[in-house]
């Protein structure tokens, strides 16, 4: 009987959303975004930001989340402080959480033989099929109009599960990328840039750079750690995969329990 309260006015997009072209509704103009971080500054908060945004009531977005680094309870608690209840979303079939904390394709076996290769291939195919099934399950319900975001946290765990096989990991990523066009979804992957910045691992980094549309980099300030500014963020937008840089955004951030603040350097006091 009581009239429902008016919906809250849509809030202004923050600097990150503006940089990513997310604005007020509408689908993002990109398909594959890589979030890069380092030991000193964790980029997990960007994933939480995407997760919250995708599941917000404003859009009809759905999420398939590959949790390799943390258990579900961790994300549940973190997002709850940000005002998003993951358990409820999971029950409503808007979130498919694939718990991969214990993911391992191989045991302690010799990897050079056929069986080792086979295990990894089978493992990755299984994982890909699981993602596919989750997307289909989400789409089969009345979740039209929205788009699906696949979030992977994080890539280095996939590499460990694959015992360092760059080939398998990149193949898997290519398959996931194909999903973005076939199934009309978006891919956000967290990667640790400092692992791959040494000579031996540069191959992976250049591949990732090539296939991505957007790069979101979280790093520490060059002047060190501060309590008010947790780091700086650089968003690199390319005009085409493997193409030239179209636009570069740079700003700073401070991570809080209930969200993240983005601001231009010097605009906080």
């Amino acid at each position, binding site marked *: 009987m009581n009239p429902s309260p008016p919906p809250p006015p849509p809030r202004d997009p923050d600097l990150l959303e503006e940089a990513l072209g997310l604005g007020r509704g509408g689908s993002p103009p990109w398909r594959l975004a890589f979030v890069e971080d380092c030991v000193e500054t*964790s980029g997990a908060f960007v994933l939480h930001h995407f997760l919250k945004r995708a599941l917000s009531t404003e859009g009809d977005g759905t999420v398939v989340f590959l949790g390799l680094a*943390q*258990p579900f309870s961790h994300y549940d608690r973190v997002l709850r402080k940000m005002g998003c209840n993951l358990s409820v979303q999971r029950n409503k079939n808007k979130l498919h959480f694939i718990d991969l*904390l*214990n993911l391992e394709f191989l045991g302690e076996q010799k990897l050079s033989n056929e069986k080792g290769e086979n295990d990894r291939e089978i493992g990755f195919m299984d994982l890909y099929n699981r993602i596919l099934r989750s997307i289909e399950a989400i789409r089969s319900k009345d979740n039209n109009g929205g788009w699906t975001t696949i979030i992977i946290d994080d890539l280095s765990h996939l590499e460990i599960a694959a015992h360092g096989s760059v080939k398998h990991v990149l193949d898997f990523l290519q398959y996931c990328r194909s999903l973005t066009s076939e199934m009309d979804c978006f891919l956000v992957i967290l990667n*640790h840039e400092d*692992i791959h910045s*040494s000579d031996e691992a540069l191959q992976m980094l250049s591949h990732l750079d090539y296939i991505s549309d957007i790069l979101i980099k979280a790093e520490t300030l060059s002047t060190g*750690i501060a309590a008010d500014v947790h780091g700086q963020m650089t968003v690199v937008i390319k005009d085409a995969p493997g193409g030239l840089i179209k636009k570069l955004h740079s700003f700073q951030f401070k991570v809080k329990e209930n969200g993240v603040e983005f601001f231009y350097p010097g605009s906080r006091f």
Partner: protein
Amino acid sequence: MATAADGRLLGARSANTSSFSRARSSPSAVLPSPPNPGVKVGPNGATFVSSGIPDLDRILGGGFLLGSLVMVMEDADAPHHLLLLRNFMSQGVVHRQPVLFASPLKDPRAFLGTLPSPVSLSKEHRQRDTLVDHNQQDQEKGLRIAWQYKKYFGDQQSSQIHNRDVKQEFSNDFDLRKALERQHVQYIESMSIQDIPRLTILRDRCSNFLSGLPRSDGGNLSAGRIAIQSLCAPQCGYAEMDWDLVAFIRFLRSIIRSSNVVAVVTFPTSFLSPAFLKRWQHLADTLLSVRAIPGMFKCFAFLMRSIVWITWSYFQLFPFCTSDEDKDMAKLLTGYQDMLGLLHVHKVAHNNSQVPTVLEASTFSLKLQKRRSLVLERLNQAPVEASSGTSYSTSGTCSGPSKGSSLDF
């Protein structure tokens, strides 16, 4: 007395149904079991155990988070990580928490003989206590052990470190000059990781340890500790097993995540390639590193050549090492001569939160207080003399990277 009075006050109520009853004292337990002092509950449902170093607990915001992985990067020049491991394990023994210790030594039990004993009240204090409590002595004879603990050897309740001489508190001070008695140490599970053919052996041992832990100890939270020393050290023989090692760490992290165990793993950074070093660092929830003080290298190199490397008597010789570099450092920092080494906090585990922990200072000096217990102090820059014009960068308490300072990591 209380029940009789209540009976009178409440009229027809019998003593049995009275809500007030005198605490029953039985021979075996005087009081109902107190909440477990070894586990502290913090905000957001976080549970902590002590690291064995009260200062470190304070720095980390409570202690080591249960369910987290603590990694300590060793310094090739000085075995300070052993101090952290020793205090960590001794604290577990004092709180009766199961400990699993894995070491690259052929016989890990030799290292357990160097665990420090908690600082107990002085003998004079004990004597004073016995005079005052003479009336209660009959009732509490079972608990009063003092220096006659050997009489009660084997009795679970009456081991020396668990009696009232050593306060049951969350974090104890340990006397590094005094070793923990053998009978306490024998309960620590230990295994050698030298030349084991496959890491699955270590994995299975950790899994078994976890499954064997009591979930709760009579209604109180219980905790377990895993200590792994020098995981990728060359004597372990894991030369071509880079990926297996990092997979093991990932496995360890995943099994302790939802358990009441904290794992401390130390590793020498010089034996890892840069990419793998970063991988290990990313996997850690809490990341610490220990460093020797520059200028002390010559002393350490000599000592390690001439003494078995696992001995804690070396730091007795500290004040006698002097050189020009030492004199420069003494000008830069106060209390330099008393420093054992430096501890740097790179990352602090945060429980179910995305907010990073920003410390006011992340580099601390390891010192011995009263030549026996370990303390961590913030680095204090010595007053700069007008005459000296050395261009060391600003302050030792700055937690960010600063160029040119020899204290940087």
